[in-house]
């Protein structure tokens, strides 16, 4: 029997049994409070039975763990497939493969005539209805990843500072030291400017999933669905959508890729420095 139905019937049965027990206990001063307590437990069981329709994922761990910090899962929510073109997760006995399709749309309303705007809006409406399969279309605004650029600037500053220290130690000419100090100031200013504000990027993509008894089965099914969807998107917008691969996938899945670590930590440091000043 289905686990959800089993829990519902179990809790419902418990509430009926407790109600009957409470009603059959004879009335007396000693048993009146007990009767009410049993009835209260029956009410709780009854409400839980109804709630189990939507909250089964929570009710069972709550009873099993009896703690305020309930662990629904201690596994990573997904893993990257060996083909690097989809992410996988286990749901019951099945594998669920999800593929992300990049939609390269670089058009702006400011460059469109009225007719083109209307066409574009209608194309977006059509896009949503392309697939019969459940599909998610997303527009994502995210912080541009300047991590590697910031790191490069930091390395350059360290190098220039070392150069300056060497020149000072070797009693080099004052003009030479001033030149290196100027270079250091320039790189610092650049790091300040790059780190001060975050630049944003906009991407559009579609995602869809397929189930399979084996990993490869789920992956091949989702790839098949993705190809159909890509041809629909291509025909609607006249663009060439592509399947997102490898690390690029993380940009659409992981929150820290929305706000890259170094880029933001540099900005937080700047904000704190400004507040202190």
């Amino acid at each position, binding site marked *: 029997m289905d686990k959800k139905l089993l829990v*519902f019937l179990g809790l419902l049965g418990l509430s009926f049994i407790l109600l009957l027990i409470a009603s059959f206990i004879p009335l007396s001063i000693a048993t009146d409070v007990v009767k009410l307590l049993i009835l209260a437990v029956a009410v709780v069981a009854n409400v839980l039975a109804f709630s189990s329709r939507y909250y089964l994922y929570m009710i069972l761990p709550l009873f099993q763990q009896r703690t305020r910090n309930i662990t629904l899962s201690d596994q990573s*929510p997904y893993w990257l497939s060996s083909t690097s073109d989809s992410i996988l997760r286990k749901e019951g006995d099945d594998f669920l493969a999800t593929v992300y399709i990049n939609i390269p749309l670089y058009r702006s309303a400011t460059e469109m005539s009225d007719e083109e705007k209307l066409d574009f809006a209608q194309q977006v409406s059509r896009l949503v209805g392309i697939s019969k399969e459940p599909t998610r279309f997303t527009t994502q*605004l995210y912080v541009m990843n300047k991590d590697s650029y910031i790191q490069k600037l930091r390395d350059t500053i360290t190098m220039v500072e070392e150069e300056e220290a060497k020149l000072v130690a070797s009693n080099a000419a004052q003009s030479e030291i001033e030149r290196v100090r100027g270079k250091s100031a320039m790189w610092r200013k650049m790091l300040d400017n790059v780190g001060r504000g975050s630049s944003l990027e906009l991407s559009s993509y579609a995602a869809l999933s397929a189930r399979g008894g084996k990993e490869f089965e789920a992956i091949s099914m989702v790839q098949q669905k993705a190809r159909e969807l890509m041809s629909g998107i291509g025909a609607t917008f006249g663009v060439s959508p592509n399947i997102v691969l490898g690390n690029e996938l993380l940009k659409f899945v992981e929150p820290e890729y929305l706000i890259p670590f170094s880029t933001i930590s540099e900005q937080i440091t700047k904000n704190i420095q400004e507040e202190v000043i």
Partner: protein
Amino acid sequence: MDEEGVMYLVFTLMMPLIGFTVLQSFGKGGFGIIAAGLLIIDVILVMIMNWADFVLFPIITGLLGITFQPAAGYSIVKGQDSIVMEINGLFYATGFVTGNLFAYSFKQETAPQDEQGKMLQAPDTWERAIMNIDFPFKFHVAAAGLDSQKVRDELEGKRSYQEYQLSKVMQEGKDNMAIEELQRKINIYQTKIDRLSQGERPLASVMYFETTAIGVSEKAALDSLTSQIKALQIAMSSMDVDLVRVQGRELYTLFRFNFGLPTSFEEMALYFDQQG
């Protein structure tokens, strides 16, 4: 409400019903009144769980301080409105807001001229809204195609029922308001049927915004998330859309959607009813 929901409701409400029939076994004095009160509370709680579980559930978890770990590294806060993740000492808080842009996707009543005007303005309105946002966010449209014939049969059935009602009211020969109302409903169903006849695919869709905020502590990240959501609500208000922060089980569902989507309409429909 679907058939399963009706079944759950009927069977659950049988318990308080039987309770009321055996109420005399709890005595006639104060104990009897308390027992009746408990049964009434049962009915009220079941009703709330049926129509507004997203209100009751966060209250319970908030009062009891219950948090959830939906996956390794993630935590759903006790208010059931945000998911927090800690990486390298920084906290990332993610929240969801409903954003059903139905006005742009499936017009029911407005004249085609108005619809065209709205569609014409849509790209400009959207770009202006985005330009006012300086934090990361995602706008998702999760859509599933429905069986055209099934939807058409359903609409024709509804239209026939309204036509029957109309003929009854017209035979009575009074109440012009009711006649106009019924004619308006018939027109809506007819418009939908016409669209299906023109080849438009009926869709079920869920549209929502997702935004992530960052902070040096969990509280800072959550505060920042709240202000981002408010900014998002203001920026998107020009899109004629109802923006409500998602709480409770639907938050968990939307979180899971980032790692795997439903594979059928029936599975998708099971997740959403009130907030979606």
